[in-house]
């Protein structure tokens, strides 16, 4: 048995935390120089370092140093680990973001160092989602090093070495660091050695000692190395070796150990991080969605028109997003100034995405035949700022980037008297109040039905002065409203005029009232004055400061396409406006919110109670979901969370809460609560705060949306993942001109035969071959078996088996031949 202590020389580098990225970059250069010097001085010393973005900085700034590093990598003395761009937060990024972390980083390592990283390494990240084993494996990594939560925060997770099984059954060998990743100084190292020796003897396998000054870089000091070298030569320490995590895992695999197994996610360390600094959370979600859409349409346009692919621009934008997923950035625990930088770089990513998407959509729309005979004969009208022919309806094209068909209200910024599809069939629409103050003050909302990853063209007749605003009334619709009640074919929602909450939430399919006599959605302010930004050692936020007081409630819209109730609440100097929007044929009640927040040391939560037994909460995690007990602990989640119970009628019933930019919920018993805002001091580490006038993480104006839906059965069988995808990634409406074209008014570019398979990437291969990459995952936790994927534009149609929660990536060549590959697109195999 190899019970050695493997000495892992490293420098924990936070590129952003209590400093901005510029300082982090300098810290990387200094640390790398120091590590190279130590490598020159100590023949046996081995240095381990993660994060491709750091190497890229060095490559750009100091080519000589980069060459030195390459040489050390070739010699096996400098060990790059973690095939990701940074050590990201491991709960908030989407599954596709994790794929991109691996794609851009591993290909960088392959190009620069001729290798990919076999070891995942997130020693400081605060929690690790239950799909990580799969995300690691498909990014080329078979083993993993982590540290948080530590044994005091979660004693159930095995210590030291264990198998980690993810929600899909994927497995990685995992090492949980005890006692820190940056041991330095004689005493610290000796204590750690003593403890590790004892544990190695007890467990029967080797251990890793992580030494070297960290956080703001630094690395192993001469003193550390002298001390360790002297230990190596002294009696009783023959079991020490300078090594790397790569070597450690190789040796442990060869040992054939019967290790403990941990299944699911690894939480909690910093429970406040998933709601702190709403800005960065919103930017992350928005950038992820915009890049997905932009890349999809750019790929389609490049395959079906003469448009050039924008792969390198998209890659650079994705790298920005990946960088900002660094755990101290995305978790909201960096200094306030750092978020100025985040806003800039995420802005760059989103502007890039918007430009690429718009170019592609206009190119595709330009192929559609929108022509009317005679349209060119009349003179352009006087419709103010619109250079259009008012005698003919204006065409618009609605683009759906999702891989399932959608039917959803969309908005154009002009009023209409009629909306039809290109067959001339009427479509439900409504003129609604616009955000502008000039001309009619009206926009059009109409219910667009769009095929998967495709478009549908519509025609909108101009609203004339004679039409007035009453054109809404004649349409057949499922939407109705009266007093403080709104309803459609799925839901009947009744509001309480005293509190502004929902006092009845009835499923129209069977008449069950999910409110059950309680009032839902009462904005609740939690006291958060006793914790720091991370909320170290605090896992529950239940200390209610008060419920927001209702200022006003009114029915502000009632039409064929949607009905809207607006509530306004206040709490001290803070205000919340909510528009509860129930659209035609929509399962989800959308709530569009504006908050002006001034309440220091507070959390704003939106609670939804559901009476019944056997409650279980379910949360979306990256490309999957996980179930957790309803114990009131603050939990990270993505686009949705759900509470399901055995209701009074004996049936399993649930209420799902969706969001467009939030990542934190709790579920104390029979209530699920979405955490909307968390207003604490920036970078307040263990609350050692002097008396000062601090800036707060969520003070000021916030715009966000959440949604509510109900279901029978368990959450994962309710279609909630598809609903949340649509909630987050809405169709884009492109106004078009009149032109001849070769393409039909409705078209799908890619379709999937099963509703529980979602496409998360349609892109071009990074090797420039022109091959197409299609990535999908199973959303409902079902062994689905055979799924057909058809993509005519690249002559591809193929089947693949999907296991529960499985992510699959396919690469299609110019002949339509398909390989199943992974996040690295088969490039590392070549």
């Amino acid at each position: 048995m190899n019970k050695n202590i493997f000495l892992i020389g490293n420098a924990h580098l936070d590129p952003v935390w209590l400093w901005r990225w510029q300082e982090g970059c300098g810290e990387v250069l200094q640390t790398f120089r120091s590590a190279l010097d130590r490598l020159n001085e100590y023949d046996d010393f081995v240095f381990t370092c993660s994060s491709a973005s750091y190497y890229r900085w060095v490559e750009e700034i100091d080519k000589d140093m980069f060459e030195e590093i390459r040489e050390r990598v070739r010699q096996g003395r400098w060990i790059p680990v973690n095939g990701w761009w940074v050590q990201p937060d491991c709960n908030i990024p989407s599954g596709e973001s994790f794929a991109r972390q691996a794609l851009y980083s591993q290909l960088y390592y392959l190009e620069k160092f001729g290798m990919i990283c076999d070891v995942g390494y997130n020693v400081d990240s605060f929690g690790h989602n239950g799909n990580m084993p799969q995300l690691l494996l498909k990014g080329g990594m078979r083993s993993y090093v982590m540290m948080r939560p530590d044994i005091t925060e979660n004693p159930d997770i095995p210590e030291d070495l264990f198998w980690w099984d993810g929600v899909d059954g994927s497995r990685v060998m995992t090492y949980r660091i005890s006692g820190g990743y940056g041991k330095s100084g004689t005493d610290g190292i000796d204590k750690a050695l003593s403890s590790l020796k004892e544990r190695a003897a007890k467990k029967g396998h080797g251990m890793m000692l992580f030494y070297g000054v960290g956080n703001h870089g630094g690395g192993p000091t001469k003193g550390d190395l002298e001390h360790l070298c002297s230990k190596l030569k002294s009696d009783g320490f023959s079991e020490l070796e300078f090594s790397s995590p790569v070597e450690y895992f190789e040796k442990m695999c060869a040992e054939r150990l019967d290790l403990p197994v941990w299944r699911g996610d690894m939480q909690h360390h910093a429970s406040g991080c998933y709601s702190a600094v709403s800005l960065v959370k919103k930017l992350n979600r928005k950038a992820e969605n915009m890049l997905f859409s932009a890349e999809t349409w750019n790929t389609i346009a490049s395959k079906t028109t003469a448009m050039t692919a924008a792969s390198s621009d998209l890659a650079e934008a994705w790298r920005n997003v990946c960088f900002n997923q660094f755990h101290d950035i995305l978790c909201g625990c960096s200094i306030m100034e750092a978020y100025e930088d985040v806003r800039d770089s995420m802005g760059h990513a989103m502007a890039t995405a918007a430009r690429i998407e718009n170019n592609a959509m206009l190119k595709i729309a330009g192929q559609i035949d929108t022509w009317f005979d005679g349209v060119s004969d009349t003179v352009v009208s006087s419709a103010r700022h619109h250079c259009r022919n008012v005698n003919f309806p204006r065409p618009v094209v609605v683009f759906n980037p999702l891989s399932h068909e959608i039917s959803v209200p969309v908005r154009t910024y002009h009023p209409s008297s009629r909306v039809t599809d290109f067959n001339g069939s009427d479509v439900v629409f409504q003129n609604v109040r616009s955000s502008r103050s000039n001309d009619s003050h009206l926009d059009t909302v109409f219910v667009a039905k769009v095929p998967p990853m495709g478009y549908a063209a519509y025609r909108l007749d101009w609203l004339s002065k004679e039409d007035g605003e009453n054109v809404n009334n004649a349409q057949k619709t499922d939407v109705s409203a009266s007093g403080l009640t709104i309803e459609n074919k799925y839901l009947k929602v009744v509001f309480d005029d005293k509190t502004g909450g929902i006092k009845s939430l009835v499923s129209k399919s069977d008449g069950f009232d999910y409110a059950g006599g309680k009032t839902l959605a009462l904005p609740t302010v939690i006291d958060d004055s006793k914790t720091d930004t991370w909320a170290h050692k605090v896992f529950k936020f239940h200390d209610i400061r008060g419920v927001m007081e209702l200022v006003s409630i009114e029915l502000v819209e009632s039409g064929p396409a949607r009905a809207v109730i607006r509530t306004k609440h206040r709490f001290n100097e803070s205000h919340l406006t909510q528009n509860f929007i129930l659209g035609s044929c929509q399962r989800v009640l959308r709530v569009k919110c504006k908050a002006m927040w001034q309440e220091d040391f507070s959390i704003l939560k939106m609670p939804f109670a559901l009476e019944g037994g056997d409650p279980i909460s379910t949360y979306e995690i990256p490309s999957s979901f996980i179930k957790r007990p309803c114990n009131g602990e603050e939990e990270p989640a993505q686009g949705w969370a759900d509470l399901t119970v055995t209701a009074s009628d004996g049936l399993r019933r649930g209420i799902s809460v969706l969001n467009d930019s939030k990542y934190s919920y709790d579920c104390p018993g029979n209530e699920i609560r979405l955490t909307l805002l968390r207003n604490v001091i920036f970078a307040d580490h263990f609350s050692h705060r002097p008396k000062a006038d601090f800036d707060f993480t969520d003070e000021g104006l916030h715009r966000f949306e959440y949604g509510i839906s109900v279901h029978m059965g368990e959450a994962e069988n309710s279609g909630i993942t598809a609903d949340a995808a649509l909630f987050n990634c809405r169709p884009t409406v492109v106004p078009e001109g009149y032109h001849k074209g070769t393409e039909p008014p409705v078209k799908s570019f890619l379709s999937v035969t099963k509703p529980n398979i979602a496409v998360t990437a349609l892109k071009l291969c990074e090797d420039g071959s022109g091959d197409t990459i299609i990535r999908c995952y199973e959303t409902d936790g079902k062994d689905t078996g055979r799924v057909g994927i058809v993509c005519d534009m690249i002559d591809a149609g193929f089947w693949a088996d999907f296991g529960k929660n499985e992510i699959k990536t396919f690469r299609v060549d110019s002949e339509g031949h398909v390989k199943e590959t992974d996040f690295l697109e088969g490039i590392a195999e070549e």
Partner: protein
Amino acid sequence: MIKPYKLTAQPCRFCTTYKKGDAAIPPELYSAKSDAPDLCGFPLPLPSKKNDYTCRAVTMDGAEWFGATTGLTRYFKDAEREDDVIMFFAADRDLPDNRVISLLPKEDGLWVQTETGVTYIEMRLVGAEEKADILLAESVKYVDRRGMYSQKRLAVPGDVSSAVSYGHSDNDGCFTAGFAIAEMLRFATFKREKGAEHQDTLGAKKTALRAVEACLLLMHIHGRGDGFVARSYLCPDEPVPDDGLFFRKEGGKATCLETKAAKKRGMVGMVIDASAPVPDRLSKLYRDEGCGDDGIVYKADTSSDEISLHFLNLLFAHDILCADDPELDEIIKFSVRGLMEHIIDHGYELHDCTGQPTTWAKWSKKYFETSHGYVDACLNSAELLMYLKVTMHILGESGKWQKAHDELIADGYADLTEKHWDRLYQAGLSMGFEPVEDIMYGDHMLCVVSFWGLCMLEKDEALLEKYRNGFRSWRTSLKREFNPGYDLPFALSCPDEEIDMERMATWLYRINISRLAAGVSTIGRHDTPVATRRAGYKEISWLLPNDERFISKYDRNPFELKNVDSGGLNTVESCYIYTFAYWIGRYYGFFE
């Protein structure tokens, strides 16, 4: 509580091949012309590339057929089952070659002209039991070799009626035991449903008995009298292949024949005792064919595969066939006692005549500590515990068997049964494999019989839970196959676990109505992605239906790309592939 799944009659492919010019071929086939189908916007993946399709026809049932230069596709959008909407037909099983030239619908079927020949294809509705009968009849007629059922060579490629009379398998005992268990369950089902004296019941009993006796014969044919089990045996007129250790019996002795394996071990010419008598009831199997004991050649170096199937076979035979057959019961008891004593007395190994363990029948701690044994330990510990439980059940004794069992439990054997996936995974990692590359598909059947046997017989709740966990630890690899022969015993053993009855139905529905061992190529299918695993192993990305992939026994990775049939057009296989799964389902109430 098992909720029965109703199996219904489903379309099966009946393909008859003709040489061009055969008088049976309608002449208009040669001149039949049609346009290439317009497949733009076709909603489903197609087996051939769209540009490869050259002709189209519609048969009486409303199905569309698209002929391609790479095979033939049937599209029936109103198919009762989603899996049957698109079907692929190709060489070697369905077509003479894959270049389709013309199509001609006629009567209930379709004439297909390819470059080198003509095929007439009919899709006939066949019930699940009817298919079992068809396959059984073929096996009884063409595969049976003195009650043994594995496979036979064909004198005329593709013509099962040309099966030659000889041809052993390395695993005759193993495959025949699988066949025997299926037939015993058929007998028990008929007995329950039709009565003991019904001719179907009596017929099933006769087939089952013959196979059980053939298995028992392998436990005595060697004449060693020490509980050893032969892999197989040959009558004097059958050729002896050079693929293992063979002994020829003569005058109460047996001499090791010259083969590569015998030479390597220095055993050529070795003479050993073979004087122990073969029970008359068993020797009748070869005596009825005119063979005496002298000249019989048996095959040694038996593996644990054989032993495991033998034990499960004996368990079913004792429980199902022996109530009114005390003679058989005595033989079974005698046989199981001898075999179990052999294993215990030899330190949990099966020993060849040299006093050394056979290559693959080792259940000792010593073996488990070797590098091969590290992974095998989890399966082999379950096997050994199952043998002891079966022995105690059949003999109705505890004594030394219980003592051995308890010692093994104390030695951690039950704990080892739970560690299969962990150890397989780690071994794979250390060798640079993905776990799926390291799976031994032949072990699946051994896992199933071991854990099924244990879960049937174990009454101690704590041990039972360990065995269930052990069975679960195989689930990741077992469920890749969706083989009801594996999944139904799993469901019986772990009743809380879910199984996919729809996929199991597909597995049964889509098995061909003949076990001619020629399959259909997976290479070049346009609708089938290929994945290259970490160590270079290539797999396809979906489980092709049985009638669209290569033919094998229960021992191959069904995702394998390389596509080598078990014997191709030159072999006919045993029906147990189907009947084992089907009759477990029927007997235990999974299928109606």
